[in-house]
């Protein structure tokens, strides 16, 4: 039998510097590259960036005060229609306010509510999910029963009741949507924690004597982050739509704050007569949600292999 004594066995694998660098570079450039390759992902990113720019640069993009009422100038159609003026290129609403500037400023509230509420519910949900999944036993039982109870109460009803008490407003809206949406996070996070807890690296951390706190923060948290981000993306979309629905029920953003949901809801009376009042905010919502969902989808695709890489 052949024996090759001249083969060194303890030398490190000859994965030289060159290959090393190649892998590094791939890691850094991977995100952008895969983003560009995924058509929907890129589209999503572009849409989201546009909306964010609208929100950030609002004052630069329009010279009209979005709240300047002019009853005599109400319901002017967009510029390309008969009766439209270049002064209000997207037309005016039922109070004669400039549609474009309202759309631009409305992006702020819609994004704030979307992101804010998701942060609130994400925080609550993630913390409870972590605790529930990690400690298990009765803690888990109690938290999950509470979650079940919350699941059993329709979200919109819950919000309806709460908003009827505290009265609408941006902060309350963020808070209420946040508080009502925690359950989905808790469930997802708990499930993730349970599966991660069973993975060997958590055991390994215990074997080297790491404390619970360290295990949660260093080992579990980073590993649930990707699914957390993915559902958060989805929830931003859901929240924006939810704000519109609450506006429909009269519990959305109050003037002088402007939100797309509110505009859409106010404009619904004019669907048949002045389509643009409701259509533009509706489009804005659709496009934003589209962007967020596409971006989220892409994120899922990108993050998935990591989550699946078990062995």
């Amino acid at each position: 039998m052949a024996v090759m004594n001249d083969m060194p066995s303890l030398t490190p694998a000859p994965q030289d510097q060159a290959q090393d660098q190649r892998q590094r570079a791939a890691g850094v450039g991977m995100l952008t590259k895969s983003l560009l390759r995924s058509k929907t992902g890129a589209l999503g990113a572009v849409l989201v960036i546009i909306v964010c720019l609208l929100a950030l640069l609002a004052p630069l993009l329009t010279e009209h005060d979005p709240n300047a009422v002019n009853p005599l100038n109400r319901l002017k159609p967009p510029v390309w229609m008969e009766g439209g003026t270049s002064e209000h290129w997207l037309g005016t609403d039922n109070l004669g306010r400039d549609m474009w500037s309202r759309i631009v400023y409305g992006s702020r509230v819609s994004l704030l509510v979307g992101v804010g509420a998701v942060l609130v519910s994400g925080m609550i949900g993630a913390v409870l999910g972590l605790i529930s999944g990690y400690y298990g036993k009765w803690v888990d039982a109690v938290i999950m029963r509470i979650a079940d109870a919350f699941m059993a109460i329709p979200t919109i009803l819950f919000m309806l009741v709460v908003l009827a008490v505290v009265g609408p407003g941006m902060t309350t809206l963020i808070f209420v949507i946040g508080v009502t949406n925690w359950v989905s996070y808790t469930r997802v996070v708990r499930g993730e924690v349970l599966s991660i807890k069973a993975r060997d690296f958590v055991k390994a951390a215990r074997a080297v004597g790491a404390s619970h706190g360290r295990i949660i923060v260093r080992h579990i948290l980073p590993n649930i982050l990707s699914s957390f981000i993915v559902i958060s993306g989805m929830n931003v979309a859901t929240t924006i739509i939810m704000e519109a629905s609450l506006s429909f029920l009269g519990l959305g953003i109050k003037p002088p704050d402007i939100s797309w949901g509110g505009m859409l809801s106010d404009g619904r009376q004019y669907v048949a007569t002045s389509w643009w009042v409701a259509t533009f905010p509706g489009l804005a919502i659709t496009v934003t949600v589209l962007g967020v969902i596409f971006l989220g989808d892409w994120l899922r695709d990108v993050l998935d292999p990591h989550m699946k890489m078990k062995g």
Partner: protein
Amino acid sequence: MGKYIIKSLLQVIPVLLIVSIIVFVLVRVTGDPVALMLPETATAEDRAVLAEALGLNQPLYVQYLKFLGSALQGDFGKSFRYGESALPLVLERLPASFELAAAAMLFAVLMAVPLGVASAVKRNTFVDLLISGISVIGKAMPNFWMGIMLILLFSVIWGVLPVSGRGGLSHLILPAFTLGVGLAAQMTRLIRSSMLDILNQDYIRTARSKGIREIWVIGKHAFRNGMIPVVTIMSLQFTSLIGGTLITETVFAWPGLGQLLVVAVNTHDMAIVQAAVFVIAFIVVITNILTDVAYRLLDPRIKYD
């Protein structure tokens, strides 16, 4: 199986208890029902009299225990608005709500299954992109907006479907479609990802290696497995529909639970809100159990105990 159901039913108790606390607290903190019941010109004295009559001046925990006690007997008190017992008022709305929810689910399934499967099978093609686009738009469109548009098109302009109200099958189409589109969007995406997952499984490769037609590989081997997670989402959607169709109901003047609830909340009609939430919670919990059972029937790997 029987044991499993009993076990699940027992789990309902703590959930409903928590629901009762949440509801009770919510309703109590939502403000003064007396103010809403009396005319604008009523005096402080009038209010005190009414509060006394309604037992609203007792300590909260006493009110809760009383509430719980009578709730157990199905007595949630009288609706301020209708002056009738709340529970029957809620129950009489259920058929309408169920009808709409079931029809919406049906629409959603009929739309989502072919789209989702096609989207997965034709992954990363134009078809996939198109279906994704449509479903995302379906999800992004607020219900009420779509409802109003559908009415304009189908009822006012083309005059082929009735505008609103509950009646025969034709009355059901528009509201069910309105609700169904959003559900279908979500479902399509789920079916897609579930099917994608399944199509990569070893047993699909096995099926192909047997020389079976591709349509059977997908229609038989992939589909049944792919449906397992879909059952879960369907039950979630169904339960959210039972209490969550209020916007569509309002737009289509559909006399379901949702409308009852909106008005009840707005008029602080505690008895109705409490009864309704209880009934909904109960339905949700029962639906969850049934889903579990369905799940177990679909997936033989799960045991009954």
